C-alpha cells in the first residue's frame, strides 16, 4: 500500500482527500487501483490508449518516474507517489 498524493485540482474526484493509500507493487498498479476506486479520475490520468497523460507527471519521493522505471517502478508501504499536473502556458 503506497501513499498517493492527490493534487488539489483532482481532489474533487477523491472526496477531497489529499492522500490515499493504494495497493499495488508498482506505480502503474497503484495508480490503476486509485482510478478504479475513483472512476472519475480516470480521464484525467489516462488517455484513450490507457497511457498516463502527457500533462500528468508522477514522482516517487523526489524522483521523476521517468528517471526510474516509469510505471514499472516498484513501490512499497514507505513509498510516496505524487501525481503532479503540468503547469505551463504563455501569452501567445
Amino acid at each position, binding site marked *: 500500500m503506497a501513499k498517493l*498524493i492527490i*493534487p*488539489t*485540482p*483532482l*481532489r*474533487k474526484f477523491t472526496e477531497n482527500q*489529499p492522500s490515499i493509500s493504494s495497493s499495488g507493487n508498482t506505480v502503474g498498479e497503484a495508480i490503476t487501483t486509485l482510478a478504479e476506486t475513483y472512476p472519475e479520475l480516470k480521464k*484525467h490520468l489516462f488517455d484513450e490508449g490507457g497511457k498516463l497523460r502527457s*500533462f500528468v*507527471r508522477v*514522482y516517487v519521493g*523526489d524522483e*521523476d518516474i521517468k528517471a526510474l522505471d516509469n510505471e514499472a517502478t516498484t513501490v512499497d508501504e514507505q513509498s510516496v507517489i*505524487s501525481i*503532479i*499536473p*503540468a*503547469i*505551463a*502556458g*504563455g*501569452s*501567445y
Partner: protein
Amino acid sequence: MDNKSTIHIAPEALTVMNKDAEEAYPNECCGFFYGHIDGEGKRHVSYAAPVINSKDGDQRRRFEISPLDYMKAENYALEQGLTLLGVYHSHPNHPARPSIHDLKQAVPFFSYIIISVHEDGIRASTSWLLNEDIGEFEEETVTGI
C-alpha cells in the same frame, strides 16, 4: 441567475503578484496563490508566492512551473491549512486574456490569474476558471484590485 465565480484578492497577495510581473518584465513571471473558499463558493486569496519560471526557451511568451516546485506548493498548503487556489502568470505586452497555450494546459478547479504588464507597468489583471463541460475558460469576477 449569475453563476459567475468570484475571487477576492487580499492587498498583500496582489502586491506580490504585481511586483513579480514588473520585475520579471519583459519575461513572464509565475507563481501560486493560496487561501480558502467560503460557504458561498467565493474564493479568497490571502497569500501569493512567486515561483521560478523554469521554461527552457523564450520566457517572454512562455512559462512553466517545475514538478518539484508544484510539490512544494501542495505541501505548503497542507502545512498551513490553506487551499492551493491557483496559478498566476504575466502576459508581457499582451492582454490579460488566456491564450490557446493557457487553455491547453489548464486543469480543473484552479483559478488562473493573468497580469497584463507593459514597460510602463501593470495594465490589467483578470482571473479565469476552466469550464470542463465546454473546455473553455470562464472569467471570474475579481474583487480587491
